[in-house]
């Protein structure tokens, strides 16, 4: 059986997998990291989004072996060891950006990538477009958009540029 060695949430792991094992299966079933969800399993919903070397990807549409040698961060890897939440998690809580919570891990991972890749600022429109790969069946998105806009200054350590708003 092939083995895959990668870093997950900062820890090096080596796991036996099959060729067909998906990254999300590795995370959930082999490593017990069940925070990453599977909603559609057809690359549509974004519940399975994790970071691969800092970039958001759908872990249901990637083979575990494709992640060999790379660094994966899941929702479990965001908070500090003392339990302090990542600013994006904190803003989701503050702005009531979740109801059932099923989409939330993927939303948060996708949102962090979005904010990180837009140091020039993000308009509401850009936030909505940036969430095209994430479906939410509960919130109607408004509070998710608010939470992301509120997380931007916390993550960049400065006010959102006025032009972006």
């Amino acid at each position: 059986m092939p083995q895959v060695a990668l870093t997950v949430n900062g820890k090096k792991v080596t796991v036996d997998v099959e060729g067909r094992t998906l990254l999300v299966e590795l995370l959930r079933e082999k490593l017990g990291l069940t925070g990453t969800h599977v909603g559609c399993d057809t690359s549509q919903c974004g519940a399975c989004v994790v970071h691969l070397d800092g970039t958001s990807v759908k872990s249901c549409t990637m083979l575990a072996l494709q992640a060999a040698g790379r660094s994966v961060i899941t929702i479990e890897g965001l908070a500090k060891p003392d339990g302090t939440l990542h600013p994006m998690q904190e803003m989701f809580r503050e702005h009531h950006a979740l109801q059932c919570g099923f989409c939330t891990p993927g939303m948060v991972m996708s949102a962090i990538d979005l904010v990180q890749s837009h140091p020039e600022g993000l308009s509401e429109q850009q936030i909505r477009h940036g969430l095209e790969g994430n479906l939410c069946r509960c919130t109607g998105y408004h509070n998710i958009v608010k939470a992301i806009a509120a997380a931007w200054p916390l993550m960049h350590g400065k006010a959102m540029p006025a032009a972006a708003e």
Partner: protein
Amino acid sequence: MYDFTYQKPASVADAVKLLGADPEAKALAGGMTLIPVLKQRLNKPSALVDLAGAGLAGISVAGGTVRIGAMTTHATVANSADVKKAIPALAKLAGGIGDKEVRHRGTIGGSLANDDPTADYPAAVLALGATVETNKRTINADDFFQGMFTTALESGELITAISFPVPEKAAYMKFPNPASRYALVGVFVAKGPAGVRVTVTGAGQNGVFRHRAMEAALQKSFSQAAIADIATPADGLNSDIHAGAEYRAHLVGVMARRAVAAAG
């Protein structure tokens, strides 16, 4: 998914060798199309040959040509300062493919090899008169697309790069399917070394096609008015749950006019 052997060769030559030695083996690029297909058990490859280690990613601009490696992701093309400067319409097209997670993994080579009749890149490749480079030859855009999900690629042949001549002006307008973001209708308009070209994706039963009537009119006068009265026949266009052929025919005109306006 049926199980398979996973291989990640370190060069194109090794990838070609692996694919040549086993007719049941398949190339893997971003996996955004192939992995969903395998999940549905529509295909049973013995091995997947991952091209990620073969050095096929990257963008270069030289002598009026933008050359994009087959494994370059949609996100890289969309964000490339070089592409934005030389062919902004191409960067915009890449930035409108699917969602950002699809763009982070999906590649130009995978999209062209797959030749989905609703994919975006085929419209740009055909309108700009690009050249598809493979491990054994170069193929003109006009010869590359051969009907939906069908290309001139032979079994085991790999796309290595695509070369786009820089046009004088170009624009792409798509009416996306609101759920998948694939093109319900997409029209690419270009004026460049290959003349004036108008290509349509998403609509044709045989995949991407050139709109000759609009090309002739725009050749004479590159303006919205020149094509305002050109009707697109619904014959040969797709009808499905997303849109009827008549509606698609109408959208071709609307998208073409918007593209001409955007190209300036």
